[in-house]
C-alpha cells in the first residue's frame, strides 16, 4: 500500500481504472464476439436456405419429371410425350440454377463445408440424362423410373437437412425440422402422383403399387402431422388456407377410388393435372416457409449484425469518451491541486496578497474556497498581529523602557525570585552597586548571599526562602522571621578590601491565580543611614560629654576653674618644652618630670571636683608608670604627649565654654566679686570632702582666722596645691582606722586644722595640723632603702630631722596600693617644689601616734593683686 500511496494522483487513477477497463473490454469482447458468431451462424443459415431453395426447386422439378416419366412409361410412350419433353427443360433449368449458385463466389466459403454432400448431389443429378435415355427407349418400368428419380430426390432431401442444421437458434432449428417434414410430405405427394397416374392409366393398381400407395398416403399424413405439430402458427395458418379448394377435394375423391382400386376410370391426365395443382399448392406453402425462414434468418442476422456493430461502435465511443473524460478529470484535478499547492507554497512563504481561483465546484474547488477564506482570515490575523506587534512595541518603548530607566536609576535593588530561588535576569542596576558584582541574573539567591553572611544567617536565609514559596505559611507570619531584614554584609572590593554594608532585604510574594508565581525582592542599602546613625550616636555621646563637661564646669567657681585650666595648661606647655630640649638619654628624667606634672594637675582637678580631667590624667599616669625605668623610645613618649594634647584640647574647650558663660555672667553682673578667700576655702573644703568620700576616712576639716584675712592672689593656687597634697597625705598615711582612733581616745573623724596668720607684717604663716598617727619614720626608712633612695649606712648616721626629710624624696611612697590619693611617692616632693616656688620655708613637727604638723612661712610683698579674671 505504501507503493500505492507514493504514486502520483494521475497514476493512482490509472491503477484504479485499468482493471475496470480491462474487465469492461473483456465483456464487450465477449458480447461482440457472441453477436458476431450469431450473425455468422445466421449467415450460414441464410446461405443454407438459399441452397435449400434451389435444391427443393430441383426436387420439385425432378418430382414432376418423375410423374411425367412414369405416365409416359405407363402409356408406353403414347401419352405424356410433350409434357415430359417440357418438364425435362424445366428440370434442366433448375439444375442450371443450382449450378449457378454452386459456382457463385459469394457462396464458396459456405459451400466448402458441404463439398462432399454437394459432390454427391451433383453425381446424382448427373444420373438424370441416362435415366431419360432409358425412359425414351421404354427400357424401364414405371416403378423403376419412379425409384430412380425418388432415389435422387431422397439424397437431395437428406442433404437439405444437413445443410440447414447449422444454427444454434432453437426456434430456427425447430422451423427447419418442420420445413423438412413438410418437404418430405410433399415428396410423398409427388410419388403418389406417379403411382396414381399408373393406376388410372391401367384401370387398376397392381398389388405392389397399391401397397406402396397406401404407405405413401399414410407417410404423407404422418409428415404433415409432424409439420403441423412443430411448425410456427403462421405456417400452419398459411398451410390450412392454401392447401384447400377444389383441386385438393378432387385429389381426395380420386384418392378414394385409388384406395378402392377398382374400375379406375378417371383420365390419368386429369389425375395428374389435379394432383399437380395440389402439389403446386404445397409448393406454394413450401416457398412461403422457405422465404419466411430465409427472411427471418436475414433479419436475425441483420439485427445480430447491427447489434454487433452498434455495440462495437458504442463500446469504442464510450471507451474513447471515458478515456477522454478520465484524462480531463484527472488533468483538471491534478492541475487544480498543482495550483493549490503552488498557492499554499506562496502562503507558506508569507505572501497573502493573492487568492486562488479554481472554477470547479468539486471538493478541490470547495477546498480552494476554504483556503481563500483561510488566507483571508490569516491576512486579517496577520494585520491584527502587526497591530498587536506595533502596540507591543509601543508598550515596550514606553513601559518597558521606562521601567528599565527606573531599574537603572532606582536606588533600591529590585529583582524577582523564581521557585528555584533564581534571581531574575532583569534586576535594578543598584543591585550591582550594593553587592559589588556584575551579571547577577540567574544566580541562586541563597548561594549568592552565602559568602556575604555569617553562618547562622546563611542557614536561616535558606530556610526562609524555602518558606517564601510555601503557601501554607502566611506571608505576614513569615515576614516576622526575615533573617536579612537588617543585616551586615561583607563584600570584596576590587581593591581586595573587605567592605561592610548594612542592607535591608524585604520579600513580597507575587500571586498569580492563587499560586505564588515569584517573589519580589527589594534590597535597600542602609550603610549610609547606619553610618549616619552611628555618627549621630557618636555626636550625641560627644554632646553628652560636652554637656557633662558643661555641668561639671557649672559646679565649679569660674575663677577656680580658670585658674586650674590656666595653670594646668602652663604646666602642660612646660612638658612639651622639656621634651623639645631633652636628649634621648634623659628620657627617663622627662618621664619623671611629666609624671610629676600630670600627677599634680590630677590632684588639682580632683580638688575642684573635675572628675573628667581626673580620669584622663589618671589614664596618662598609668601609661607613664608603664614606661618608667624601661628602655623607652621617643615614639613611646610621643604617644603620651599626644594623649596630653588631647586633654589639653579638652581643657581649651572647657575654657572657651567658661569664657562664654563668663560673658553671659558679665552681662548680668558688673563683675565677679572675688576679693574674698571664699573660693579658696570652698575649693579646699570641697577637696577634703571629696577625698574623705573616696577614701572612706571621715574628716573634720576646718580653717582658723581666714575670713578676715586677704590672701595674696599669687599664693592662692600654689598654697591650695600644697594643702591638697597634705590633706591627701593625711588621708593616705596619717589617718588610722576608726577603731584604732577610738581606742586611743581620739574622735572617730580625723581633725585637720588650717591656720593663716600674718606675722611680723612681712610673712604669712600657714599651719597645717592633723591628729593622725604622725610620720612612721621606721616605715619611711625601710621604704627608702627598698626603693634604693638611700643606703642603710647613711640611715644609721641620720637624726630624726634628717630622716623626716626622706618624705620629700621623689619616688617614696608608703602606700601599699596606688590610688588617686596616694602611692605615687610624688606628693611631698611636689609640696617642696611649690614651697620653693613661693619662696617660702617650712617646718615639720610629727609626734608619733599623736599628730602631724607642717608650718609654712611665706614672704608677703607689698603689691596690689588683681583679682578680676584676665580674659
Amino acid at each position: 500500500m505504501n507503493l500505492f500511496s507514493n504514486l502520483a494522483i494521475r497514476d493512482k487513477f490509472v491503477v484504479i481504472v485499468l482493471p475496470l477497463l480491462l474487465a469492461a473490454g473483456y465483456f464487450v469482447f465477449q458480447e461482440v464476439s457472441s453477436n458476431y458468431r450469431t450473425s455468422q451462424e445466421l449467415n450460414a443459415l441464410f446461405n443454407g436456405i438459399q441452397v435449400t431453395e434451389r435444391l427443393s426447386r430441383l426436387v420439385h422439378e425432378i418430382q414432376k419429371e418423375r410423374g411425367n416419366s412414369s405416365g409416359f412409361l405407363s402409356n408406353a410412350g403414347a401419352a405424356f410425350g410433350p409434357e415430359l419433353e417440357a418438364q425435362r427443360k424445366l428440370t434442366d433449368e433448375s439444375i442450371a440454377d443450382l449450378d449457378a449458385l454452386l459456382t457463385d463466389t459469394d457462396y464458396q466459403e459456405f459451400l466448402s463445408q458441404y463439398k462432399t454432400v454437394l459432390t454427391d448431389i451433383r453425381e446424382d443429378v448427373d444420373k438424370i440424362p441416362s435415366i431419360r435415355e432409358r425412359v425414351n427407349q421404354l427400357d424401364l418400368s414405371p416403378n423403376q423410373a419412379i425409384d430412380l428419380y425418388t432415389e435422387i430426390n431422397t439424397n437431395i432431401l437428406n442433404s437439405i437437412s444437413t445443410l440447414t442444421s447449422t444454427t444454434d437458434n432453437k426456434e430456427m432449428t425447430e422451423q427447419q425440422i418442420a420445413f423438412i417434414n413438410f418437404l418430405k410430405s410433399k415428396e410423398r405427394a409427388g410419388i403418389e402422383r406417379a403411382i396414381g397416374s399408373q393406376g388410372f392409366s391401367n384401370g387398376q393398381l397392381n398389388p405392389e403399387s397399391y401397397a406402396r400407395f397406401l404407405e405413401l398416403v399414410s407417410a404423407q399424413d404422418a409428415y404433415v402431422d409432424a409439420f403441423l405439430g412443430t411448425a410456427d402458427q403462421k405456417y400452419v395458418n398459411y398451410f390450412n388456407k392454401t392447401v384447400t379448394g377444389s383441386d385438393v377435394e378432387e385429389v381426395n375423391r380420386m384418392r378414394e377410388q385409388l384406395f378402392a382400386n377398382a374400375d379406375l376410370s378417371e383420365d390419368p391426365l386429369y389425375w395428374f393435372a389435379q394432383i399437380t395443382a395440389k402439389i403446386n399448392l404445397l409448393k406454394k406453402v413450401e416457398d412461403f416457409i422457405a422465404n419466411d425462414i430465409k427472411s427471418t434468418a436475414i433479419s436475425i442476422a441483420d439485427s445480430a449484425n447491427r447489434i454487433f456493430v452498434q455495440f462495437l461502435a458504442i463500446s469504442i465511443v464510450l471507451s474513447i469518451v471515458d478515456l477522454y473524460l478520465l484524462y480531463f478529470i484527472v488533468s483538471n484535478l491534478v492541475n487544480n491541486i498543482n495550483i493549490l499547492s503552488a498557492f499554499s507554497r506562496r502562503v507558506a512563504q508569507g505572501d497573502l496578497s493573492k487568492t486562488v481561483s479554481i472554477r470547479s465546484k468539486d471538493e478541490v474547488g470547495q477546498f480552494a474556497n476554504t483556503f481563500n477564506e483561510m488566507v483571508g482570515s490569516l491576512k486579517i490575523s496577520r494585520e491584527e498581529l502587526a497591530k498587536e506587534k506595533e502596540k507591543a512595541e509601543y508598550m515596550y518603548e514606553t513601559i518597558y523602557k521606562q521601567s528599565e530607566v527606573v531599574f537603572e536609576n532606582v536606588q533600591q535593588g529590585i529583582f524577582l525570585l523564581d521557585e528555584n530561588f533564581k534571581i531574575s535576569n532583569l534586576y535594578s542596576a543598584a543591585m550591582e552597586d550594593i553587592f559589588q558584582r556584575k551579571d547577577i541574573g540567574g544566580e541562586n539567591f541563597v548561594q549568592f548571599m552565602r559568602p556575604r553572611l555569617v553562618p547562622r544567617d546563611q542557614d536561616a536565609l535558606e530556610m526562609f526562602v524555602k518558606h517564601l514559596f510555601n503557601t501554607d505559611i502566611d506571608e505576614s507570619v513569615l515576614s516576622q522571621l526575615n533573617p536579612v531584614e537588617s543585616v551586615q554584609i561583607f563584600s570584596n572590593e576590587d581593591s581586595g578590601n573587605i567592605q561592610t554594608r548594612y542592607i535591608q532585604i524585604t520579600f513580597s510574594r507575587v500571586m498569580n491565580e492563587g499560586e505564588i508565581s515569584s517573589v519580589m525582592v527589594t534590597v535597600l542599602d542602609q550603610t549610609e543611614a547606619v553610618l549616619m546613625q552611628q555618627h549621630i550616636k557618636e555626636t550625641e555621646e560627644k554632646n553628652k560629654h560636652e554637656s557633662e563637661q558643661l555641668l561639671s564646669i557649672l559646679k565649679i567657681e569660674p575663677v577656680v576653674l580658670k585658674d586650674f585650666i590656666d595653670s594646668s595648661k602652663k604646666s602642660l606647655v612646660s612638658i612639651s618644652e622639656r621634651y623639645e630640649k631633652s636628649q634621648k638619654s634623659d628620657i627617663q628624667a622627662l618621664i619623671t618630670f611629666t609624671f610629676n606634672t600630670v600627677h599634680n594637675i590630677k590632684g588639682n582637678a580632683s580638688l575642684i571636683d573635675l572628675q573628667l580631667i581626673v580620669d584622663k590624667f589618671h589614664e596618662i599616669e598609668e601609661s607613664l608608670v608603664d614606661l618608667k625605668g624601661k628602655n623607652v623610645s621617643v615614639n613611646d613618649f610621643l604617644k603620651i604627649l599626644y594623649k596630653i594634647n588631647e586633654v589639653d584640647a579638652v581643657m581649651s574647650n572647657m575654657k572657651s565654654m567658661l569664657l562664654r558663660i563668663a560673658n553671659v555672667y558679665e552681662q548680668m553682673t558688673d563683675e565677679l566679686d572675688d576679693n574674698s578667700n571664699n573660693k579658696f576655702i570652698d575649693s579646699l573644703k570641697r577637696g577634703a570632702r571629696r577625698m574623705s568620700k573616696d577614701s572612706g576616712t571621715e574628716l573634720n576639716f576646718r580653717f582658723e582666722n581666714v575670713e578676715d584675712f586677704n590672701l595674696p592672689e599669687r599664693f592662692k593656687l600654689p598654697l591650695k596645691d600644697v594643702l591638697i597634697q597634705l590633706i591627701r597625705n593625711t588621708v593616705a598615711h596619717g589617718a588610722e582606722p576608726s577603731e584604732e582612733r577610738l581606742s586611743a581616745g581620739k574622735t572617730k573623724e580625723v581633725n585637720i586644722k588650717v591656720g593663716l596668720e600674718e606675722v611680723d607684717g612681712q610673712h604669712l604663716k600657714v599651719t597645717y595640723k592633723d591628729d593622725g598617727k604622725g610620720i612612721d619614720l621606721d616605715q619611711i626608712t625601710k621604704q627608702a632603702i627598698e626603693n634604693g633612695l638611700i643606703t642603710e649606712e647613711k640611715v644609721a648616721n641620720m637624726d630624726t630631722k634628717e630622716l623626716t626629710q626622706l618624705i620629700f624624696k621623689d619616688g617614696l611612697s608608703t602606700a601599699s596600693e596606688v590610688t588617686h590619693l596616694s602611692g605615687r611617692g610624688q606628693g611631698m616632693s611636689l609640696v617642696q617644689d611649690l614651697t620653693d616656688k613661693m619662696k617660702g620655708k617650712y617646718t615639720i613637727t610629727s609626734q608619733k601616734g599623736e599628730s602631724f604638723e607642717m608650718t609654712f612661712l611665706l614672704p608677703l610683698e607689698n603689691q596690689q593683686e588683681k583679682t578680676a579674671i584676665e580674659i
Partner: protein
Amino acid sequence: MTLLIVDDSSVMRRTIEKHLSDYHLDIIGTAGNGRDAVQIVKDKRPDVVTLDITMPEMDGLTCLENIMEVHPQAKVMIITALSDKLTGLQALDKGARGFLYKPVSPEDLTKAFDKLLNRN
C-alpha cells in the same frame, strides 16, 4: 475549637488566656513544660496550640516535633521572646503555622489567630 496554651511562665499563660477570652475558643488546658504539653496533646488532641520555645524539661522545638508526631492536624502558633530568627524558621520547618514575638498585645494575638484559623 479547642486550644492548649504551653508556656513556662504562669503569668504568660494567664495573659494569653485573658487575651483570648472573647475569641470563642475552648481552652482545654495549659502546660508549663514540653513534656506535659505533649501528654495533653496526645490525650485531648486540641485544634490549636500556642507554644513557647524556651521551656524547662523539653524545649519548644522538640516539643513541637513530638506534637506534630502525635497530632499532625494541630495548628501550632509559636509565641516566643527569643529574637533568633533561625529558631523561628526551624519551628515553621517542623510544622508551626503561626508566629508571634513576646510581649503580645491582645490585638496582635487576635490578629495572629485570625490568620492561623482563616477568620476574618
